[in-house]
């Protein structure tokens, strides 16, 4: 039962991953693509981590999965901000509204 639920979560997570990738390829500029990556991939990984955690063998594994998720989430948001900041500075002047 838990396995089925886990598999469903993993599948759902993959859908978000694919969405992130589609966004990365389709969206018009870097900032929009950043939206796609930080949000969709972040949630995708969270769902996959949850799914794997449901299938995990012991509490130790769950702890590590939680740690991984937490780290990816924090790093994702921070890196998103850093890239946006970098891109704004590299951008030609005049788009600051």
């Amino acid at each position, binding site marked *: 039962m838990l396995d089925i639920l886990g598999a469903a979560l993993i599948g759902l997570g993959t859908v978000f991953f694919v969405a992130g990738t589609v966004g990365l390829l389709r969206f018009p500029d870097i900032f929009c693509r950043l939206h796609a990556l930080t949000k969709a991939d972040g949630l995708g990984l969270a769902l996959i981590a949850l799914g794997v955690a449901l299938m995990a063998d012991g509490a130790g594994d769950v702890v590590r999965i939680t740690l991984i998720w937490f780290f990816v989430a924090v*790093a994702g948001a921070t890196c998103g901000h*850093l890239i946006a900041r970098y891109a704004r500075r590299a951008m030609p002047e005049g788009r600051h509204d």
Partner: protein
Amino acid sequence: MTDPVIIFDLLLAAAVVALAVASLSVRDLFVAIVLFITFGLLSALSWVRLAAPDVALAEAAIGTGVTGALLLKTLRHLRYVSGTLDRAEALSVTPAAPVPAPVIWANAAFCGLVTLGLAVAFLGAPRSGPGFDALVAEAMPASGVDHPVTAVLLNFRAYDTLMEVVVLLAAVIAVWQIERGLSDAPAPVLGAVWEGFARLTLPAIVVVGTYLLWKGAEAPGGAFQGGAVLAAVGLLLLLSRLYVPQPSHRGVARWAFVLGTGAFAGVALLVAGGGRVAFEYPPEHAKTLILLIEGLVTISIAVTLAALFHGREPVALRSDRGRA
């Protein structure tokens, strides 16, 4: 043949080869480095598929993480020194004439020939053939640790590993010797979000690195992987200028560089005696000794890798910020 995991393997292998080609053939060096880092990431994944998580860890942390940062730093230095840092056309540092098509074809042919020859030899060789499996399995109980790779590294073939640490020492001495007291390109300010991130995660990375070291006694991990993760903390500190090496830190740094080599070689010598030879740890103390060596070697590796990234010896010739 319809197993999706095999499709995954094929796709991964193809991506690895394609990335290898791409990272050598793109015009922009920055892209080449990004592709190279991706290449390292995917090779680490391949090694996971080949049931070699230790190797994957080492490759991800050292081969890709530290090496990638080193390459980026070098690229930035080259562009800064040659004054092309602000120019978009600084694609390649030493621009060369475009390669004529015949040369490319000749290269491709040579590459294909080597691949073919080696592949024939590879296909003709026994697979899952003879190896050390049985010998290692037999010797494991006397090794002092529960993880075969660590047992090989720190006990059965400790001599190799000592020399590997010596290679690191040689590298850091050579690098200190090569680069003189010139300043680096100025580092950008990273801002409040980064600071918050650093506060939260750098200490956690220290703990995770040490955890890998500790884990090495019974599962994938060990001194090199742990040391590399700890070195990542050093890299971040150096990159964000939270830590700026001072000339007065040189003495400590020297001791940290030689700590691993000295401890490893010292223990190897000290255990000799009473009918034992060098590197022959007494079985009842083997675990303690191995953990001791690993701990000290990890410190050395972390400091050395961070120093290799920083490059020059910190000397008080000029100010550390900006070119005078």
